[in-house]
């Protein structure tokens, strides 16, 4: 206990220097935590945009569908599949869909469109089309009407009450053609989706594609991304591998995963540079501390303090500095991260457009995940622990008689 007391009091011998060192560590941890929190927040936004609001955390398809996305690779929505959500407690929803392409036309304009046959109630767990409505109203399961994405509606000059013509090829080559009144216009944050989505109630879409009781995908939602792996494994165990493929969002959107990994790596490089700079500052403090106390080390050695013990006390002093800085840095960054998680900044103008071009909602949002903060603390404490070996090295090379002459 006296050794700890000694270490603690030693660090306050030169208050100003200690405060400057702690402040530099605090700043590094604060800055790095906030940056990481922003990074993770933007990744989570990307994942939310692509995954939570579009594909789901996982999907069940007919085997081979993902390589050849065609209505012929649809599967029957059996009783067992309807009960699939019960296979793991973490699954919050299983959402049936039939997706295919069609030519969408109005008067003299036409455009390729992605047609989504959705279950109006269940799709509220994922795409939440009702919340994206800009005009009109949401449809019901038995309706024979469409909701059109805003970009497509603008291109086709469609308004509420207008008729949209869809022409495509159905299951096993059947003709698919239909005229549907537009009951709603929805806006999607991702421009690519906003330009081409058309929603039909599931039953009507199955009729349109002559694919009665068939689906192209069954999207799976879990509460937290961490639960996805377990949920996917549970589903796989219930389904025949010969007949179905069960994919998670990372398998379905590898480009997103790569983009996040690449960005994370460049972020790590930046933090490494930041920590090296801060490391030099801490090392400066250690150098000064070691040189100032050379005589004292000599005296302690003279009265019989073993080198290892003395080294450990100085090591604890430096690590304490690192820990204090890291804890304060974390304490400062958490409330700010939390604030921007709850109140994300929405970009406008050119900045918003550039975000949208990358397929990301123009939001600056943070993530509050304890692992972000503990990681920063870990690196700072590791760095200070390594730097704190320097006084130990000096003490081991010291002869008391020389040190006391200083």
């Amino acid at each position: 206990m006296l050794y700890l007391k000694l270490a603690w009091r030693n660090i306050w011998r030169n208050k100003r220097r200690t405060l400057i060192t702690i402040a530099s560590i605090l700043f590094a941890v604060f800055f790095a935590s906030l940056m990481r929190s922003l990074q993770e927040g933007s990744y989570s936004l990307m994942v939310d945009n692509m995954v939570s609001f579009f594909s789901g955390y996982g999907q069940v398809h007919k085997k081979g569908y993902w390589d050849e996305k065609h209505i012929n690779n649809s599967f029957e929505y059996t009783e067992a599949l309807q009960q699939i959500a019960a296979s793991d407690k973490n699954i919050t929803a299983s959402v049936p869909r039939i997706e295919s392409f069609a030519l969408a036309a109005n008067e003299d304009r036409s455009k390729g469109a992605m047609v989504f046959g959705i279950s109006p109630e269940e799709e509220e767990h994922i795409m939440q089309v009702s919340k994206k409505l800009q005009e009109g109203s949401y449809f019901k399961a038995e309706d024979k009407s469409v909701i059109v994405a805003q970009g497509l509606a603008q291109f086709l000059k469609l308004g509420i009450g207008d008729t949209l013509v869809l022409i495509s090829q159905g299951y096993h080559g059947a003709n698919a053609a239909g005229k549907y009144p537009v009951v709603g216009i929805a806006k999607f944050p991702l421009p690519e989706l906003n330009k081409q989505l058309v929603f039909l109630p599931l039953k009507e879409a199955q009729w349109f594609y002559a694919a009665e009781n068939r689906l192209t995908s069954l999207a799976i939602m879990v509460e937290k991304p961490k639960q996805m792996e377990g949920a996917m494994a549970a589903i796989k165990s219930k389904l025949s591998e010969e007949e179905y493929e069960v994919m998670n969002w990372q398998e379905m959107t590898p480009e997103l995963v790569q983009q996040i990994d690449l960005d994370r790596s460049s972020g790590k490089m930046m933090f490494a540079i930041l920590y090296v700079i801060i490391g030099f500052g801490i090392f400066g403090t250690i150098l000064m501390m070691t040189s100032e106390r050379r005589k004292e080390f000599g005296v302690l050695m003279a009265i019989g303090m073993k080198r290892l013990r003395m080294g450990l006390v100085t090591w604890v002093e430096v690590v304490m500095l690192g820990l204090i800085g890291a804890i304060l840095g974390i304490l400062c960054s958490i409330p700010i991260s939390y604030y921007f998680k709850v109140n994300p900044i929405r970009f406008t103008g050119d900045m918003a457009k550039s975000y949208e071009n990358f397929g990301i909602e123009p939001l600056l949002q943070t993530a509050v995940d304890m692992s972000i903060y503990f990681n920063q603390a870990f690196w700072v404490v590791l760095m200070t622990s390594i730097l704190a070996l320097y006084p130990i090295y000096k003490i081991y090379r010291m002869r008391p008689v020389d040190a006391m002459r200083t």
Partner: protein
Amino acid sequence: MSIVIKTQNITKIYNETAVPVHALNGVDLEIHKGEFTAIVGPSGSGKSTLLNIIGGLDNPTEGKIEVDGVDISTLSQNKLIDFRQKKIGFVFQAYNLIPVLTARENVEFIMLLQNRPKKERDKRVEELLNEVGLKDQINKRPNQLSGGQQQRVAVARALASHPKFILADEPTANLDSKSTANLLDLMARLNKEENMTFVFSTHDQRVMDRARRIITIDDGRVVSDIKR
């Protein structure tokens, strides 16, 4: 009286490879238990070097030194640290207390290094600080104490480890007359009542006047050894 310190032909040469400086030239000494000895001599005479070698802080170039029957000239640095902790009490010219510890903690510290139990440490600290007349200053840090008081804490610290002898390197050099007299009274009392062996290096006539043996060193040799 048993021999506590015995040196045989101690030689110390600094800068052996460049311009050699002979700090000690064949010093032979015997110091017995209970002696109150002052090593005196002009600056550069070699008295501090001799004290460092006796205290196991430095190794002789040649010769043999026995402390409490152990030849310390052959001990490694780590073993010397252990040896000093158990057998020798140090009092330095500049007191050299640990500035961030209180008087009590400074005295306790050396017993902590010896892994003595807490109860024993507390008892001994109280006894020692009482003995050196600092009972009321127990929780003060060195910067809150006068030079004389700090030196008395240093004496208490030196005694705390139950050493075989105390080495004091010019212990009164930074003290005023009154503090010097108090310190010398304290050391003389400890010497008389507890038969503690004291070896000083000093320039101070007041210390020489109180010493019962005066060893004079000049040019690295013992030029006189007077017992009173």
